[in-house]
Every structure is written in C-alpha cells, then in structure tokens.
C-alpha cells in the first residue's frame, strides 16, 4: 500500500513537472529569440569589411561572414524572422486543417469525399515541389513562402481531426444529441469541438517544426525570403558559397539554432500529446 502510494506520488507529478519545465525552457528560448530579434538594431549585424571571416571566438561568438557581419546577431534576427513566418503559417494551416477536418466528418457524403480528394491531391506531389510551385505562382518573396508553407501543411492535421471526429460521432452521447434534435452546427460546437481541441493543439505544436523547416528549405533554394533579409535559409545558402574555403562556422551555428527550436517544439508536442491523452495522462 505504502509502496503504491509512493509510486503514485513519485510518478504522477513527474510528467507534469517535466512538461512544465520543457515548456518554460522552450518558451524562454523561443520568446527570448523572438523578442531579441525584433528589437535588435540593424547596426548589430551591419556590414563591416574590416572584420571579414573571423572565426568564432570571444569577440564574435559565431564568427563573421564575407561582409564582416556578426553571425551571432544575424542568427538571432534570422531565427526570429523564421519563427514569425513559421508561427503565422502553422496557425493558418492548422485552422484550415481544423475546419476541414471537423466539417468533412460532420457533413460527410460528397463533401467528405471532396476533402479527402484534396488531401490526397496535396500529398500527391513531393512536398518540396508543391512548396516551390506555390511560391513560384505567388512570385516568390516573403508572401510566397508564407502562403506556400501555410497552404501545404493542413492535410495531415485534417486527416487526424477527421478521424477523431468520426470516432466521436459514433459515441452514444453525440448520437443522443442528434436524436434530441440538435443541429449539426450545435453538436459540432458543443460536443465535438471541445474534444477535438487537444488534438488540434498538439497538431499545431507539432506542425510548427515542419513549417519552420520547410520555410528555411524554400528560402535556401532561393524562393523564399529575399537575400538581404537575415533568415536561417538565406544565411545557410550564403554559407554554402563559402564552405569550400573552410568557413564551417557560417553553416554550423545557424543550423544548430534552428535545430534547437525545432527539437524544443517537438518535445513540447510529444509531451503534450502524452499529457492530454487520457490513457497516458496519469502515468
């Protein structure tokens, strides 16, 4: 009895405490980078040809690039820019996914088939090619990459939400609500949405790393943010030109910063999933 109690006490807060720790660590890093990047004066990563290609050291934490710009501040600014685009794009994408997923499961019939067709259509091309096409259509630039990322990340979430809603729709209390004459919209709002919300939130958090990675990939290939904007993709594509002459720090640190952001979001998402799932929430 005593042992069981101790186990319960030792284990139950553990996941929660750990998740709170993860979330705060991630939040400090991400919000910190975001705000720092937003208020960072452009002079801190300004061109200074006197300090060209200085390897990382005490004066320049991440070294300097071919124009003598301080890579550390440039990375902070760049990641901040990438975060904004990633956040905006994943928000748009997740709202599309949520709406389509719920409505296709609730309305069903032809509409459901249509939505599934759209999902398959979106997944019928390699993701990167679709991103390139959309950004090509919108004339590249920041809008192009934002829309490209926002318009291509909803299919998986749509499937997830749809499956969840379909399962819910067959539960007795939802069936009862229908029999009692509630409209579809009513049932959707009162019973389905609250259940789908956790799935949605986890989906949103897990969507974000994809969005930010794809943004940087498209930018790296030259379709995204313009070359003068500090962005991780731009920085890495510039680094590519100097890597042959041994300027490894130009690529290493920006990538590490991006990975840190992506991993943190992944960890939050996976842990939230565990926490919000009633079957594993008590572990």
């Amino acid at each position, binding site marked *: 009895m005593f042992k069981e109690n101790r186990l319960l006490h030792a284990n139950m807060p553990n996941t929660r405490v750990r998740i709170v720790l993860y979330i705060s660590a991630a939040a400090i890093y991400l919000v910190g980078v975001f705000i720092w990047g937003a208020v960072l004066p452009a002079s801190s990563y300004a061109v200074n040809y006197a300090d060209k290609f200085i390897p990382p050291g005490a004066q320049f934490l991440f070294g300097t690039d071919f124009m003598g710009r301080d890579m550390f501040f440039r990375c902070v600014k760049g990641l901040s820019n990438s975060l904004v685009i990633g956040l905006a794009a994943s928000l748009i994408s997740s709202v599309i996914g949520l709406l389509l997923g719920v409505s296709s499961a609730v309305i069903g019939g032809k509409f459901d088939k249509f939505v599934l067709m759209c999902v398959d259509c979106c997944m019928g*091309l*390699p993701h*990167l090619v679709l991103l390139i096409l959309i950004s090509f*259509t919108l004339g590249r630039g920041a809008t192009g990459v934002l829309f490209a990322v926002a318009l291509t990340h909803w299919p998986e979430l749509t499937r997830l939400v749809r499956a969840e809603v379909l399962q819910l729709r067959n539960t007795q209390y939802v069936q009862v609500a229908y029999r009692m004459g509630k409209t579809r919209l009513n049932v959707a709002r009162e019973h389905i949405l609250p259940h789908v919300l956790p799935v949605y939130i986890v989906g949103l958090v897990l969507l974000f790393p994809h969005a930010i990675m794809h943004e940087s990939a498209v930018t790296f290939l030259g379709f995204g943010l313009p070359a003068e904007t500090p962005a991780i993709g731009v920085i890495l594509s510039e680094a590519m030109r100097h890597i042959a002459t*041994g300027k490894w720090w130009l690529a*290493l640190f920006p990538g590490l910063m991006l990975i840190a952001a992506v991993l943190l979001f*992944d960890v939050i998402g996976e842990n939230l999933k565990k926490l919000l799932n009633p079957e594993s929430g008590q572990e």
Partner: protein
Amino acid sequence: MTKAGGAKKILGIFGRMLLLLVLVSVLSFVLITKAPIDPLTAYVGTESTLSQEAKDEIAEKWGLNESLPVRYFTWVKNMLHGDFGMSITYKKPVIDVIHERLAYSAVLMALAWVFSGILGYALGILSGMRRGKLFDKVVKTFCLVLQSAPSFWLGLLILSVFAVQLGWFPIGMAMPPGKLAAEVTLSDRLHHLILPVFTLTIVSIGKITLYTRQKLIEIASSDYILFARARGENTRQLISRHMLRNTALPAVTTQFLSFSELFGGMALAETVFSYPGIGTATTAAALNGDVPLLLGITLISALFVFSGNLIANILYGVVDPRLREGGGYV
C-alpha cells in the same frame, strides 16, 4: 480471397490513384500557369530572338491564347505524344533534360533508399530489442535529432567535414571538372556520388528506424510472443520466426510511402553538392521561369510519388498474407 479478387483490388487501387494523378496534374498546371509571367515569354524566354511568326506558331501549338482548360488539354495531348516543349534554361527539349538528369537522380535516390532502408531497419530492430538500454536511447535521440535537422544543413556539414576539412571527397558536381565526358571513369562518378548518397541516406534513416523500433516494441508486447516465449523459444528464434516477418512488410511499405520526402531530400542534397540531377533542374527551372521544364518535372515527381504509393497500397492490401487469405486485420 480468390486470385480474381486480388486482381480486381489492384485494378481498383490503380484506377483511384490514376484519377488522383490526373487531379494532381491539373493542380500543378493551374498553379504554374497562374504565375505572374507572360505565357508566351514562359515558353520562349525573355532573350528570345524568334520571329513573330515562330512565336505565333508556338502560341498556336500550346494554345497559349486559349482558355485554361483548352491549354491544359493541349498540354496533355502534346505530352502524350512525348512532346513536353523546349526548356528555356537548358535550350533543349524538356524530355531530353529530364531523361539526362533523371539518370543521375535515380541512382542517387535508389542507393540512398536502399541503404537507408536496410540500415534503418536493422537499427530499428536492434534498438527495439534493447528497449530502454543505452543503445536504444542513443539511437532514438540520434534519429530524433536527424529528423529535426534541415537536410541541406546536414549536407553542408558533411560537405564541410569530409570534402573540405578531410579532403577525402570532391566538393561537388558529378564528375571532375575539366575532364571530357568520355574520359570520366566509373570510379570518378562513384567518388562524386558517395557524399550525396551518404547525406540522403542519413536524412532518410530516422523515419524508418523509429517506425521499425515502434513496430517491434508493439509486437514484442503481444500475446503470441508471450506464448512463443512460454513455448520455450529463445530470443534469436523469436526474432527470426516472428518479429522479422511481422515488421518487414510495414517497414517496406513505409519506405515506399516516403518517396515524397525522398524526392525533397534529393532536391536539397543536390543543391548542396551541385549535383546535376532533377533537383537542381527543378530549382533552376522555377528560378528562371522555365514553365515547360517545371511542368515536366512536376509531372515526373508526381508520377514518382504515385508509383511509391501504388506499390505501398498493393503491398498492404494484396501481398499481406493475412488479407490475402480473406481475414481482416486482427
């Protein structure tokens, strides 16, 4: 299920996916032709020296002055005759460009696909068997980090370490610069191929490893494994009799379903290593507003994903002995 049933099922899957392919081609056609460039310019390029008559002829052939559906059907009709148009970027017929570049990319993707599949599967089995041990933790963390790393960044690091710092491999391209095409030996080509293949393998390995590991853990906790243990089978017998068989099919299916990511990874890896394959051609086409080439490559990439999905579907629904013998999944 009878043999005819299986054939019917394959036909059904094939038909549905063919319809999807048509829809995808419509989608990409609309996307590309809606781009803010003049359709005629897109076909002849900005520095065209063609006469007005020749331009008119091209406009006539591709129906550039017609409505969108007419243009689409003209494009499909020409394409079915093997005519994808001329690429402005490479000043060659699109079909030749694709043909030439696909050879490079196909080798790259095939090698990386096979290596990542075999290595990933083996790693997944090994770490699944040692669940919770140090080896498992290391493999799991390694895969998670790999999945969170941008593939082009990994490529840059690999390039920096193996080509620049160590000098073991050439920095890019598919053959030594300044050498005549006829003089390039197979070992030259292989030497240039190793780093891109290595990058693409590393990029693709995370997913299959984690998936196999997960599947193995699921199976290991099932009742029939418990029963097999109770019967006195040792670990080696368990693996060879039950686990390998039951994880192989889902793993192969996943590997086929990852064609889309493989293509994307290939495009990025090729850019990093300036490898003259389809990936670099895609970026070049889109950056230069080369509509015919972009359309051609998009269609090829859609076909590629399509065939992967088709094989996965068939493997899943028809080859699986549990389904073939008429029982549903348990």
